[in-house]
Structure formats: structure tokens, C-alpha cells
């Protein structure tokens, strides 16, 4: 177990390093320095600026310095707004984290609920309806779904107010963000629940006369949960990428929207900062999930 954890952490650190390297060298490959912008700068000012941001040093040295700065939490300043990227990330991430957290909870609860219902009513009407809708949600791009939600419930019906700083209504963004993971968890829960229902210990419990709800909650659902844990890592990734889309559509100033803005404005330091931040976040979640998975199910042998 200890050996496994160490190995897993080592792998995660290597991956994070590779992400940083790819990001840094990819951005460096773009022709033109950050100060060759619209406004002409005098050579002296440019030299001073380059010295300030270590741009006069050779590229490998710049990379080492960049890594050092990242470890200190210093992502540099935005090329377009001149703001400190660390503050931008933390400010916008608090909104994204709230949104993403709610979406995770909604997706998990509803996914487990619908998945269990589908497994328990196999081949009957509720199962067929749930399977139909979960397949439909899984085959609709998130920006189409979010746009439809916005159009129908905000604009046409007027049930939900449009997002603004004073009126932060999370209902529609959370639904838009949770739809895909929810559909996936539903299908996952259904299969693992059906698998668990066919096990011998469930038959034994039923033969003993254990109440139906107890069989479901104690014997089946608990075991059906294990595969769902493995999905937490991919779910985080999907919700983070989904937030790029959803935040932009609902005009929420979260990290995802900042990232998309950075791309449209060609704000390379912002793109670098957010990419590394999001990547480290995803890799950490994956690491934790893998370790938790191992603890929860001792049957699993991970070499």
C-alpha cells in the first residue's frame, strides 16, 4: 500500500513537471516576444523589461526560473491587463469552485438515484426512460445544451434571472455543467448495481428475509459505489472543461471564462498560468481518487 502511494505520487509529480515543460516550451515556440506588442517600446525600456522578466537569459535557464516562480505561486503578470495572474486565478477560481462543487454534488446524487432506479426497474418503463435521457444528454455538446437552457428558461419563460454580479443564480449553470457527468454516473451506477444485484450475498440476504430497502442500501448500493469512485477523476476534468463553456455562455467571471478570454486575446502568460493551475488540480484529484479507490476496495490489486 505504502509503496503504491509513493509510486502514484511520483508519477503525479512527473506528470505535473511534464505539463509545465510542455506549456513553457510550447509558449516559447510562438514567434515574437511579449513586448513586441502594438505600442512600440524604446530599446532601453524593452531591455529593462526583458531583464525584469528574465527574458534576456537562455531558454533553459528561463524554464528553471519559471518553475521556481511557480513553486512560489508566482505566475507572472497578464500581458494584456498587467494584473498579477495569481490574484486573477484565485479570485475567479472561487466562483468556479463553487459552481463546479455544486455540479459535482448534483451529478453524484441524481446520477446515483437515477442509476439505482434504472437497475431496480430493469427493462421496465422507468429504466427505458432513464436510459433514453442519459444517452441523449451524453450526446449533446455542452455549449448547445447550455444555450438551449439559457434561451428557454431565461429568455423565453423568464423563470430564472440572467446572471449578474448582484444576482448570482447558480441553477441553470449547475444544471448545464452537471448534465454530462450525471448521464455518465447514471449509466455507470446502473451497470454496477445490476452486477451487485446478481451476487450471491444479495441472494443470501434476501433468503434470510432482510428488508428490501436494507438489501438495496447496505448490500447493493455500497458495492455499486466503488466503480463510481473511479469516475471522480474524469468527472473533475469534464466539469473543469465544461466550465470553460458554461461560464462563457452564462457570462460568469470564473476561471474558465478567464481562460477562454486569454485564448481570444492571445494573453500567453494568462494561458500558461491557468493551464498549469487547472492541470495540477486535475492531476491531484486523480491522485487522491486512485488512493481512495485502493483504500475503499481492498479486492483491487494495483500492481
Amino acid at each position, binding site marked *: 500500500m505504502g509503496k503504491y502511494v509513493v509510486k502514484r505520487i511520483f*508519477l*503525479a509529480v*512527473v*506528470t505535473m513537471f*511534464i*505539463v509545465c515543460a*510542455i*506549456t513553457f516550451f*510550447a*509558449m516559447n*515556440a*510562438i*514567434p515574437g516576444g511579449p513586448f513586441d506588442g502594438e505600442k512600440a517600446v524604446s530599446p532601453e525600456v524593452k531591455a529593462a523589461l526583458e531583464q525584469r522578466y528574465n527574458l534576456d537569459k537562455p531558454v533553459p535557464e528561463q524554464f528553471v526560473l519559471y518553475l521556481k516562480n511557480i513553486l512560489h505561486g508566482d505566475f507572472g503578470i497578464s500581458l494584456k491587463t498587467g494584473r498579477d495572474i495569481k490574484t486573477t486565478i484565485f479570485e475567479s477560481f472561487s466562483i468556479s469552485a463553487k459552481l463546479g462543487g455544486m455540479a459535482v454534488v448534483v451529478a453524484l446524487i441524481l446520477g446515483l438515484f437515477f442509476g439505482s432506479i434504472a437497475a431496480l426497474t430493469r427493462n421496465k418503463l422507468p429504466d427505458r426512460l432513464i436510459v433514453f435521457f442519459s*444517452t*441523449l444528454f*451524453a*450526446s*449533446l*455538446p*455542452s*455549449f*448547445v445544451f447550455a*444555450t*438551449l437552457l439559457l*434561451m428557454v428558461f431565461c*429568455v*423565453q419563460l423568464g423563470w430564472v434571472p440572467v446572471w449578474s454580479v448582484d444576482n448570482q443564480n447558480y441553477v441553470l449553470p449547475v444544471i448545464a455543467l452537471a448534465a454530462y457527468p450525471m448521464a455518465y454516473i447514471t449509466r455507470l451506477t446502473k451497470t454496477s448495481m445490476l452486477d451487485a444485484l446478481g451476487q450471491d450475498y444479495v441472494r443470501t440476504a434476501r433468503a434470510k428475509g432482510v428488508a428490501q430497502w436494507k438489501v438495496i442500501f447496505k448490500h447493493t448500493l455500497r458495492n455499486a459505489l466503488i466503480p463510481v469512485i473511479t469516475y471522480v477523476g474524469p468527472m473533475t*476534468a469534464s466539469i*473543469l*472543461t465544461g466550465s*470553460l*463553456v458554461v461560464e*462563457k*455562455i452564462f457570462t460568469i467571471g470564473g476561471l474558465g471564462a478567464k*481562460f*477562454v478570454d486569454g*485564448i*481570444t486575446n*492571445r494573453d*500567453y502568460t494568462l*494561458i500558461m498560468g491557468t*493551464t498549469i493551475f*487547472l*492541470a495540477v488540480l*486535475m*492531476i491531484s484529484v*486523480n491522485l487522491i481518487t486512485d488512493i481512495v479507490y485502493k483504500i475503499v476496495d481492498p479486492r483491487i490489486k494495483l500492481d
Partner: protein
Amino acid sequence: MDNMNKDINSMPKKSLFSMQIDLKKFEKATDEEKKQQDVMSESVSFFKDGMRKLSRNPLAMGSLVVLILIIAAIFIVPHVVPYSYSQIITVNGKRDKSAANMAPFEYSDLEQEYMAEGGKVFPHIMGTDEMGRDYFVRVVYGTRVSLSVGFFAAMIVLIIGVLYGSISGYFGGKVDLVMMRIVDIIYSLPDMLMVVLLSVVLREILNVDSIPMLQKIGTNMISLFIVFGLLYWTGMARLVRGQILTIKQNEYVLAAKVSGAKSGRIIRKHILPNCVSVIIISAALQIPSAIFTESFLSFIGMGVQAPMPSLGSLANAARAGISVYPYKLVFPAVMICLITLAFNLLGDGLRDAFDPKLRR
């Protein structure tokens, strides 16, 4: 003769332990008896059996029909409809500026005049877009672009994944260990972020203008393919390696080795046929995933090069006028939905029909 037969037939019942031969058992078989030995049905090959199972699955068959219709449409429609994806509608040689943003089956004033004079105008089945281009043709071309992006991405994943996975699985040992650690690392890279990052970089440094074929689809799609080639094959490589490792341990492979088969023959005759169905299914499921990635890239403004449409870029462009012209979002969105749904359902059906492990 007759007498002898009678003798045989009336043979005394033999005692339990007697060595006396029951001559009845050595009579010639009658035609009727011979018929019983005939094989009732033809022997069924693995492929035929799978196809039969597939044809009993209505969802999978429906998806197959839908896909065939879509593919037929993207080849036939551009020849039938007299508009092209980038051409602004012209009536009688004149550019029709009033033809922008028309509803399905609507005709512009100029077109109505022309029709009143006896000219023929092909109906705009899905209306026109904001620049006065026929939307139906654009959706058809968008489907074509999206499907080919999906297809090429799947091919890249298939080729790299199968090569890498089979080398790793076949050689085993240290080679396998090193190759799989590399896969582990690539697998844990956040793929969407890397797609975006590489697209940002490649659109600056790639110069596709020199190659006319690539120019049409644009830098962003090239970077999409590059990213698929760099990152997305890991799942396929793991799958192939796992398949080869399990198949290698089967008794029939051992039997083939014992009877002196060379490894080339073992790979061709025993290993490949057993994992090819799984590989093809998983490659087919890459197509909707690539279409999704492309539509995501279109959303953040890094899709195919204009004026070439893709389903994602059409849907994204339609968001601007969504409250006035909702149909412009609905058509490409329904197409994306249909394609991904059909591929997923067909993939599930194929898996049920061809995966030997699922047979019980």
C-alpha cells in the same frame, strides 16, 4: 436368404454378460438414418454469427441505417443542390442581398420575382444564414467536415494505438514496463487543456498555406489531429496490449506453438482475429469523441477555417441570433446529436454482438 434373416431377427435375447454380437448394429444404415447425420444448418463463422446478433438489435440497426443515410446524404446532396457552402445566393446572375437569414422554405423578394417570371429556384430547405448562404448545404458540408475530422482522428488513434500496444504486449518484460509507464504519464495529462494549448501555439507557428489541401481545413484541425496523435491513442494502446496479453496465454496459442507455428502465423491467425472486433469498435467510438472535441474547439473560436463549416462552428455561430433564428442552432445540434447517438448505440450493439467475453 429369407430364412437367414429371420434367424437373425429371432435371435434369442442375449444374457447380460454374453459376448454375443448384436448383428443389428452392423446393418447398413437406411437413407432415413443417414439423413439424421446431415448437418441441419450451415456452420456459422464468427463474423456471420455476430452480424446475426447485430441484426436482432433494433437500436443498433436503426443507428446503422441513420449513419448510412447521413453518409449517403453528404455525398449526394452537394451534387443535387445547386448552391455551394461558401457562395452567397445569386438570382439570375445578381447577388441577392435580401436573402439573408431566411426561414426554411422561404424565398427572397428577388427569387419570388424571378419565379414569377418563370425561373426555377431550388428551395432553401433549412433557410439561409446571416450572409445569405444556403443553410442546408452548409449543414451538409458541416456534417461532412465533422465526420471526416472524426474519421481521421479515429484512424490516427487506431494506427498509433495498435502499433504501440501490440509492440508492448508482444514483447512484454522490460520493454512493456517502460512503454506502459510512458502511457501512464501521457494518459494522466489533461487532454482538453493540451488540445487548447497546442492549438494556440500551432496556429502561430504552423504554416499550412504552402500546402493547398491543408489550407482548406486550417491550422486548428491540423493541431487537433496532432493532439489526437500525441495524446488520445493511449486508451487504444492499453486496450490492445491487454487483449494481446490475455490472448497470448490461451491454450490454442500454446497448441499452435507446440505444433511449430511461427510467431508471424500466430499473430495473423490467432491473436489478430481475436482482438480485431474490440479494436474496431473502440476506434468507431473515437469518432463521436473527436466530433465533440472539434465542436468544443469551435466554441472557443479555434475550429475549422472559415468559410468551411463544421457542425460545431455552425452551432456556435448560431448562438448569436438564437432568440430570433433558433432553427439555425437546432439543425446542426440535431445533426451532432444524431451522429454521436448513432455511433454510440451502434458501438454498444457491436460490442454486444462481437465481444466473446459477453457471451453467456
